[in-house]
């Protein structure tokens, strides 16, 4: 077990540094911070609402993540397969799960870092009023968990293809379906031919409804379990995909 953690940690360190070895990090972080701010101020009406909270800031995270998280996730395995380094990685004395976990943790930490960089929003709202910082903290946590779920989906899709563009589009689409699964768009299309139980189940898988609960300050066990099982499920799926597709 310690071995597993050590190896995953070594992989994660390498991966994390790799983001900063290319302009990817600076481009991503800049756009992330700029867009989260822009959405909150211009579309969310941060000032017009006259309330000291970050609700308009967090409300747009799911939509931003649909675009930005697949951009981080697409390279996770597709690049490794394209450049052939997967053969090197898989013949080192590490297990595939350690590699999958390490890569995922690095990407997650990278997005976590991007979230941390949005701290001026928090300072602003505290300077202007007296917000409920507990709600803000749970919202940040919720946003981070949601990013993890999107990333795990992206990791799986990235393992399915060598082509990063395909990985991006597929990951964004699947993430979109999960986000919207509680809403009419998805529900109408499945209600017609699936039994009630299944449509209910699909509805309960909605990332958006779980995230909205958290941003209201409600951090419950089912929501935590939901996000963590999404991550676990898609990381195992990544394992299968890597195993099946690595040689192609």
């Amino acid at each position, binding site marked *: 077990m310690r071995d597993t953690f050590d190896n995953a940690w070594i992989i994660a360190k390498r991966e994390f540094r790799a983001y900063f070895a290319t302009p990817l990090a600076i481009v991503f972080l800049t756009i992330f911070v700029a867009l989260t701010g822009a959405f909150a101020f211009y579309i969310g009406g941060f000032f017009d609402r006259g309330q000291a909270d970050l609700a308009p800031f967090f409300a747009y995270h799911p939509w931003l993540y649909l675009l930005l998280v697949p951009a981080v996730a697409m390279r996770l395995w597709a690049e490794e397969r394209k450049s052939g380094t997967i053969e090197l990685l898989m013949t080192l004395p590490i297990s595939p*799960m350690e590699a999958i976990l390490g890569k995922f943790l690095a990407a997650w930490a990278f997005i976590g870092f991007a979230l941390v960089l949005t701290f001026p929003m928090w300072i602003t709202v505290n300077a202007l009023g007296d917000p409920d910082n507990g709600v803000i903290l749970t919202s940040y946590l919720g946003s981070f968990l949601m990013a993890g779920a999107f990333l795990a989906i992206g990791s799986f899709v990235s393992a399915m293809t060598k082509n990063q563009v395909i990985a991006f589009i597929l990951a964004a689409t699947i993430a979109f379906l999960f986000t919207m699964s509680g809403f009419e768009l998805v529900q109408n299309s499945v209600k017609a031919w699936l039994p009630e139980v299944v449509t209910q189940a699909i509805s309960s898988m909605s990332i958006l409804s779980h995230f909205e609960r958290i941003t209201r300050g409600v951090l419950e066990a089912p929501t935590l379990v939901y996000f963590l099982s999404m991550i676990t499920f898609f990381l195992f799926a990544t394992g299968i995909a890597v195993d099946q597709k690595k040689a192609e």
Partner: protein
Amino acid sequence: MRHRTPTLPPAAANTTTEDAMGPLIEAHQLHKTFGEITAVDGISLTVQRGEVLGFLGPNGAGKSTTMKMITGFLEPDSGWATICGHNIHEAPKLAKSMLGYVPEGAPSYSEMTTRAFLGFIAEIRGFRGEEIKKRICDAAEKTGLEPVLDQTIETLSKGYKRRVGVAQAILHDPPVLVMDEPTDGLDPNQKHHVRELIKAMAADKAIIISTHILEEVEAVCSRAVVINRGAIVADGTAEDLLRRIRHHGAVSIRVPTDRSDAALRLLMDAKFVAGVETLGSANGHLHIRALPRGAGLDPADVAALLHAQHIPIDELYIERGRLDDVFRQITTSDDQKRKTKGEGAANA
């Protein structure tokens, strides 16, 4: 996914290093198909400590697939492979820790510096602290990477990139080395350097290198295995392989064209000559090849025979044959056989 815990068979538990007696690499009846295509069709081989096995075959013969199964990247459909006695799929971590592998094209993380990349490999290999620095220095020195240690790998020339691949494989001084075309794309000096390196390491390791450069086999390999269409078609030293060629040990001579008829007649009648071939004429000389009968042909006999009739010999040498010819002979005659067999079956 198949997530196996690396458990050891009880017998192997005490010999975590390696069994001094057994082969360091063993492959048994490896099979692999990709859809309709049979890539590897029952390859077995063993490599002992001190051996450098040259893995030869036309492109697409199954060399890389076999190496990928031996190194544990691919799982065979059937058959097994062991590294130092440890099954690569049942005890992957243990087996892989005793293995250095240079995959085809020597891939590496191109955005890293050479030093950072080797550092990452060292850490994964379980080295910590000062030992990492020492290992990087050692490997860089052996592969001549010192000048580019702090350059990012993507800026390096093909030759350096290849050597980065070799450096990461030898960093932990493994008992087993598997290299897929380690000298591909190197200039003659670099090739020489890598071959010297392989020779220097050969004594206490078991090494497999795949190549399509046949001179390499003579230069570094103690044994050559030729595969074609996923099966082994020849296994032996370079000399063994050369013996397979028809004109191995033949004596070639050049005689003036005006005396060539006499020379041909003499050679044809000689009891130690199995046959005579003419290989064309140039500059007033005819090139004749005398094929040996039985045990071999002594060039002195040929010289004496012609001297007795005062036929001047311009040039005389024993032909060893070229590995290229052996290679072509082995791999194409095998194809021919299969083809005729296939037609026979179709007719029946």
